[in-house]
């Protein structure tokens, strides 16, 4: 089984290195095909490991090699395949395989084709390290690795100013959060003397609550950065500058869920500090509705889906914070499938529309792009949580968990968000695929994507439909060997049915409202004159609550000014001046003393005499000092030296 573990882990790396060999040369199909095949191998190995874990109900733990060993510090490169990590491995490898195959078509005409696959496979490798590591240090390597690859892929089209800006924003925000996480890891090591999960978590029960709270908070700061939780959320929407397959893989299905994975992995820690858990849940619920409201008005389909991802991450954190770790993980899995599908569908639309992203300029695309329409609609149904698609099972469970735990405010917020989710998802569906044709007038000639891209997407479609009702039971059985097995049942049958049906009716009503509102033939490309666009609410939402503006004005600008001051005053006048001064001293001395080396024998003789006299006088001084050393000591002590 170890062989399969290493295959699953390292074949993406091999694929990445293979593609990287060609990164400077012209596009070759093989640079895309080989990494895709290797990811298929990784997926197969992960599946075999999944059946191994399921079949034997045991876990696999290997130690590849020692990384650091000094004194009391021992960190190996160790990997663990247990019920939680195998779930993540399946999600990661499956979605990445689909996205790789899809990207062969999507990036077809791009100059950076080979480079793209090098980055993308490198990302999968980092993500596998992140989820498979058996200690916090390995997790941190993967954590930074995915951050780096995310930077490279957001800024993939580095000719574009906005893309490099977004890449840097994502990278810097993640660094800020990673500092928090690093402090958390240091605290863990400081207090338990190890970073291995199987040593750390049992040891935590003996620590005092204050320490645990700090560890929990700092680890969660790391998770907030990676999962783009408020107030570090702005990078995710800007990250949509990257190619769409990247958004599907990194910014929907895998990397952004790493924060949720961290919290789920540390469930034994968070179970000891329920107050921090409640904070996480409240923040999650807040982010869920916060992001959903921004998605309501945005006029960029990828950004709408990005906000939707943010909102769903909020759901996951709400579940994890309330202690329903397996529910969070289940929603993570289901969400990965339908959200990746939604993004890839959006990629098809972008391709058809020459990278146009404003849904108001589309309309009636459903005629030419039937399969994309079907896939995106089903993905949106799954996202909205309609029975019997995946979202229904996972999202309903979160709502139930909140209700059963008597966190009615969180429940209410999440329920309202479910309605908003349905509304904005179908708002873009209706605008893109239905209604009057608005794109022909603007000179667009949409066409359906390559057939193999659609076929590549189909596994996600299948999973978005069936993963809910097919996997729920088995998933619960599997992961609860590791996670707390809390079942969330509303004991009163009547309440249960009222809630479930009520939620469904609410969501369906939102969908119909969205269809009715945005399918009407009166929809025009907004030009900023309508009363709605003038209203304060709209302005607040379209400007993302003015938070990016606030950051730019009150954080970035003062920081830049401060940097300028430091540059001009400290760097130029102190640091540089010191260095230059030393160099200048040498120059001046050399300039002054080069007269000595005139080659004139007479001058040299003069210097020789001067040296002789100098040495003689030194000899005299030292001789005298040695003779009178006793009295000198007395004199010096009299001076108080």
């Amino acid at each position, binding site marked *: 089984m170890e062989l399969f573990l290493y295959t699953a882990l390292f074949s993406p790396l091999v694929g990445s290195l293979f593609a990287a060999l060609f990164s400077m040369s012209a596009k070759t199909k093989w640079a895309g095909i080989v990494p895709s095949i290797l990811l298929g191998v990784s997926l197969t190995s992960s599946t075999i490991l999944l059946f191994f874990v399921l079949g034997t109900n045991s876990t696999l733990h290997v130690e590849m090699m020692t990384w650091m060993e000094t004194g009391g510090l021992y960190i190996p490169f160790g990997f663990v395949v247990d019920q939680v990590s195998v779930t993540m491995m399946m999600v990661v490898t499956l979605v990445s395989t689909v996205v790789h195959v899809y990207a062969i078509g999507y990036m077809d005409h791009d100059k950076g084709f080979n480079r793209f696959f090098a980055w993308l496979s490198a990302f999968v490798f980092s993500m596998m390290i992140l989820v498979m590591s058996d200690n916090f240090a390995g997790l941190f390597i993967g954590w930074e690795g995915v951050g780096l690859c995310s930077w490279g892929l957001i800024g993939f089209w580095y000719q574009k100013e906005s893309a490099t800006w977004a890449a840097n924003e994502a990278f810097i925000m993640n660094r800020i959060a990673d500092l928090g996480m690093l402090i958390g890891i240091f605290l863990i090591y400081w207090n338990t003397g190890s970073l291995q999960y199987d040593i750390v978590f049992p040891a935590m029960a003996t620590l005092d609550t204050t320490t645990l709270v700090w560890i929990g908070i700092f680890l969660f700061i790391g998770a907030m950065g990676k999962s783009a939780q408020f107030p570090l959320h702005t990078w995710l929407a800007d990250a949509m500058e990257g190619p769409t397959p990247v958004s599907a893989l990194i910014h929907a299905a895998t990397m952004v869920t790493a924060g949720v994975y961290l919290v789920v992995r540390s469930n034994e820690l968070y179970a000891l500090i329920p107050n921090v858990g409640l904070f996480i849940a409240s923040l999650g619920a807040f982010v869920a509705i916060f992001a959903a409201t921004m998605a309501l008005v945005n006029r960029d389909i990828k950004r709408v889906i990005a906000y939707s991802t943010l909102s769903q991450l909020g759901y996951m954190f709400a579940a994890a914070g309330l202690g329903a770790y397996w529910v969070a993980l289940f929603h993570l899995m289901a969400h990965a499938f339908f959200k990746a599908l939604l993004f890839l569908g959006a990629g098809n639309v972008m391709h058809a529309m020459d990278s146009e992203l404003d849904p108001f300029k589309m309309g009636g695309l459903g005629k030419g792009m039937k399969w994309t329409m079907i896939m995106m609609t089903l993905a949106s149904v799954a996202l909205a949580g309609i029975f019997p698609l995946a979202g229904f099972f996972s999202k309903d469970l979160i709502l139930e968990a909140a209700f059963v735990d008597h966190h009615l405010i969180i429940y209410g917020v999440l329920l309202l968000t479910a309605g908003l989710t349905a509304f904005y998802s179908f708002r873009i569906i209706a605008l893109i695929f239905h209604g009057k044709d608005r794109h022909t007038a603007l000179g667009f000639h949409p066409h359906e994507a390559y057939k193999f891209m659609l076929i590549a997407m189909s596994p996600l479609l299948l999973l978005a439909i069936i993963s809910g009702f097919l996997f729920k039971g088995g998933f619960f059985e599997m992961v609860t060997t590791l996670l707390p097995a809390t079942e969330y049942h509303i004991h009163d049958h009547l309440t249960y049915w009222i809630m479930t049906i009520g939620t469904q009716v609410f969501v369906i009503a939102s969908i119909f409202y969205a269809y009715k509102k945005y399918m009407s033939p009166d929809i025009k490309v907004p030009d900023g004159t309508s009363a709605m666009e003038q209203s304060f609410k709209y302005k607040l939402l379209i400007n993302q609550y003015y938070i990016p503006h606030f950051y730019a004005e009150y954080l970035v600008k003062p920081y830049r000014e401060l940097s300028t001051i430091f540059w001009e005053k400290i760097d130029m006048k102190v640091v540089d001046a010191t260095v230059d001064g030393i160099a200048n001293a040498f120059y001046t001395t050399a300039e002054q003393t080069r007269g000595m080396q*005139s*080659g*004139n*024998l007479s001058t040299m003789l003069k210097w020789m*005499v001067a040296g002789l006299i100098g040495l003689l006088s030194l000899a005299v001084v030292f001789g005298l000092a040695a003779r009178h050393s006793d009295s000198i000591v007395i004199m010096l002590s009299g001076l108080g030296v």
Partner: protein
Amino acid sequence: MEIGLNHYLVLSTILFSIGLVGVMRRKNLLMLFFATEILLNSVNIAFAAISHYYGDLTGQMFAFFVIAIAASEVAVGLGLLIVWHKRYNNIDLDYLNTMKG
């Protein structure tokens, strides 16, 4: 007044100083050789005087060595000087600067 060791040493020092100033000031290569001779012989006086003072012949022996070496040095030096003079037609130190760094 009896002439003692100190007188010899003072004489030696005076001669040494004269030699040193000669080495520093003279531009004529021939004069430089003279100055060197004065230096060496001032030391010889000191050797001989101290040797006599201690009743130990080693110092005087050393003076003989110095005289011998000085003679050979002058022989070589004058040879070089003559060659130099033949080639450049002067023996001024200020023109002797091909070793300039």
